[in-house]
């Protein structure tokens, strides 16, 4: 067998990825089990709740039909296995409201959500990392002080307030972008900024404090002792060492951007997963909720896999410890 060249890490990386994939299987099962459990965790009879409000009259025939459709008339293990089997075929059931397949609903809503989350993520990274790097490099004390305090402010701004403010200024006052809807990239700008601001704050906060700590590290002093400029030390030495927590943080945030953009989607009148969740909750549309929970769970697993792979590019130590643990 070929002895791996030092520095050639792709073999080890693939082995690690394979192990992580195996490890993801039980997590995946856990996630779909929880999603399955949603219907059974509703206090009272889920069919009653889904069909009516409170103790109002319910058509017994409809009730029986729904019970059968949701397989609630069968023993729990049967239900569970049937749910898994359907899931395996990519069948998440039908919406109680419209009768459309849940997968179609999710696919429809995921598009705008992904576009929004992606744009917000990119903006947040640019603003956050840019702010932290600028704060570190600037010679101006005032700018440094401002940039080190701004992140906390950005994190604490409530989304509904930012969204309303942005709408007031850029749509109603200046008329630069449409206020509502999801048509075209221009309509994505304002909601993306709304979501990006707190994200940028968190990233700038974590990266900034990481960089301020790294400044005193021995390897940074050594680099400066070689004659490196501050810019070189920051870009070449400090940034990659500080990036790991930022990547972790970004990974966990993406999940919440996908499913949690309720406020932004509501205010800007955008379709998306957040809206779909709110709508399904209001109408007790449990198959849809089940489907979204499973979808977001799987997405989170994929993101954390991606984050794990990113680690191995950022920090060579990750690979060597991962192989023998």
């Amino acid at each position: 067998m070929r002895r791996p060249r030092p520095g050639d890490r792709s073999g080890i990386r693939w082995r690690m990825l394979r192990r992580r994939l195996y490890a993801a299987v039980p997590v995946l099962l856990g996630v779909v089990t929880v999603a399955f459990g949603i219907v059974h965790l509703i206090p009272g009879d889920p069919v009653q709740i889904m069909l009516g409000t409170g103790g109002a009259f319910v058509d017994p025939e409809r009730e029986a039909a729904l019970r059968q459709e949701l397989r609630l008339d069968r023993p729990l293990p049967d239900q569970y296995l049937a749910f898994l089997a359907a899931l395996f075929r990519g069948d998440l059931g039908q919406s109680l409201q419209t009768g459309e397949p849940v997968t179609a609903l999710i696919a429809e809503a995921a598009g705008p959500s992904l576009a929004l989350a992606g744009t917000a993520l990119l903006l947040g990274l640019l603003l956050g990392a840019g702010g932290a790097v600028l704060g570190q490099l600037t010679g101006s004390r005032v700018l440094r002080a401002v940039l080190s305090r701004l992140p906390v402010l950005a994190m604490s701004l409530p989304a509904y307030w930012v969204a309303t403010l942005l709408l007031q200024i850029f749509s109603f006052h200046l008329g630069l972008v449409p206020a509502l809807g999801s048509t075209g990239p221009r309509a994505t700008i304002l909601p993306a900024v709304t979501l990006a601001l707190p994200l940028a704050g968190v990233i700038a906060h974590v990266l900034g404090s990481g960089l301020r700590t790294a400044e005193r590290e021995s390897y940074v002093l050594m680099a400066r002792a070689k004659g490196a400029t501050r810019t070189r030390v920051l870009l070449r030495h400090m940034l990659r060492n500080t990036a790991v927590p930022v990547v972790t943080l970004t990974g966990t945030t993406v999940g919440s951007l996908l499913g949690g953009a309720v406020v932004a989607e509501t205010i800007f009148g955008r379709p998306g997963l957040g809206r779909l969740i709110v709508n399904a909750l209001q109408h007790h549309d449990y198959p849809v909720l089940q489907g979204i929970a499973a979808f977001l769970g799987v997405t989170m697993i994929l993101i954390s896999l991606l984050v794990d792979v990113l680690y191995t590019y950022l920090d060579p130590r990750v690979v060597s410890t991962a192989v023998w643990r």
Partner: protein
Amino acid sequence: MTAEPLLRIRGLTVSYPAAGAEILTSVDLDAPAGTTVAVLGPSGSGKSTLVAAITGLLPPEARTGGEIWFDGLALHRMDEATRRRLRGRRIGTIPQDPAVALNPVLPIGVQVAEALLIHGLAGRAEAGRRAIGLLRSAGLPDPESVAARYPHELSGGMRQRALAAAALAAEPELILADEPTSAVDVVAQAGVLDDLAAVTTGTGRTLILVTHDVGLAIERAEWGVVMAAGRTVEAGPIRRLASAGEHPVTRSLMAAAPHLRTARLRPGSAALPPARAQGRQEKRGRPAELLRLDRVSRIYPPAHRADEPVPALDGVSAVVHRGETLGVVGESGAGKSTLAALALRLTTPTAGRVLFDGADLAGLRGAGMRAFRRRAQLVFQDPYAALDPQMRAGDAIAEPVRALRLTGRSERAARVREAADLVHLPVTLLRRRPRELSGGECQRVVLARAFVVRPDLLICDEPASALDAAVQAQILQLIVDVQAELGLGCLFISHDLGAVRQVADRVLVLRHGRTVEEGPAAETLEKPSHPYTVALVAAAPGRRNPPPPAVSPAATVPPGGIHP
């Protein structure tokens, strides 16, 4: 010193007005071109601050005064951009701890080549080639492979050499080495220093060697500067300082230097009334066997799957009796720490047996295991790392008593005081946290934590190596005293042969996981028979030192020290 020195410092001060701290109050130093100047002093005397002041890498909040002249240039008046161009190009720095001074996420070759790129001395490809040559001349085998590796894939000694290669890449005239070898073993230390000596002697380069290791300074430097509490107190030819130093700090530094010729420390010299210690000695008679390692091997999986597995230990046998100290010496990678881990059953042997008081450690479960955890205690090298920074000293000492549920609450306090007493730790310090204690005080806390459960076996892994010579001497004395008082068996692991000579009754020499030699400490270290032990002893600093004035008179020792 008639010619203008390459580096001249006059009245240098460094202070932190915000913290109200004056680190350097008055430092004068002359480093003639082409010489090696040792800067000596106890920790906290400002040695590292001096180095940072010369390179101009003090924290921004520091205020400096006085003059620093380098080759006719006034560094103290120079702007940052000009000064930066000197760093790495004309003034090279080798920092203290190789474990943290290399960037963990960049390959070694890139870090070695960096100074060449920064100062425009070579293009990217050329710098990479030169880096491999630099690594080779720094004494690293297979430099092509080393250049592609990351810091965590190298041993401490290799990292230190890589750092030296990085610092010397642009061939600076002045080299500042801040404790360059305190973190590596004697053999690597000798190698690194030989390499440094090779680039300084005959090339007209100047080396400022900052160290608390007097033996090393005497061996390597022509001039010495002694610092204490932020000022230079004495300067001159190093040999004159060693034999006829006038300042009390100089004299105490020189006297405390551990020495291969110093005999084993006697218990009772400080801690106990002699009568008590003697009583122990008489009672002892034929000491019972406490720990036996019976042809133990330990194989770790290789770093790369295709490599052969490397045995960290390969068929090593050793015995520790009650009241006796077995010193374990060897280079890093010799298997010393694996031996300790096996003796404590922190890991299990892949072959062979470890017997404690006659019982095989592999068979211990439940209560037997808990009893063993009480009876065998461990002391590490770095006392700050071994203590929870949030925990007060008294709580740290009480922790094993609590964890092992040995006594009730009221008796626990008494046990803690008793243990503190044993290590001469004032009761007032028990309320402090580690960062409020000195290194020596911290190591006393660690020792008290080991002694509080009244163990039978003490395993010390480099217990004094991170400490100043003077404090080191106190800690070693303490270990010897308490050992006699409690009748402990002791496994003392160190790369410092001087320290081992002072505490060990017998010595086990390891190399690449195998026993090289074993025997009484005095004989083995003074008349080593195996060639490897001879080399190890030869590499130890202090071998060629003039004897410390306070310990033994010069007349009894042949010039040139001990020869095998």
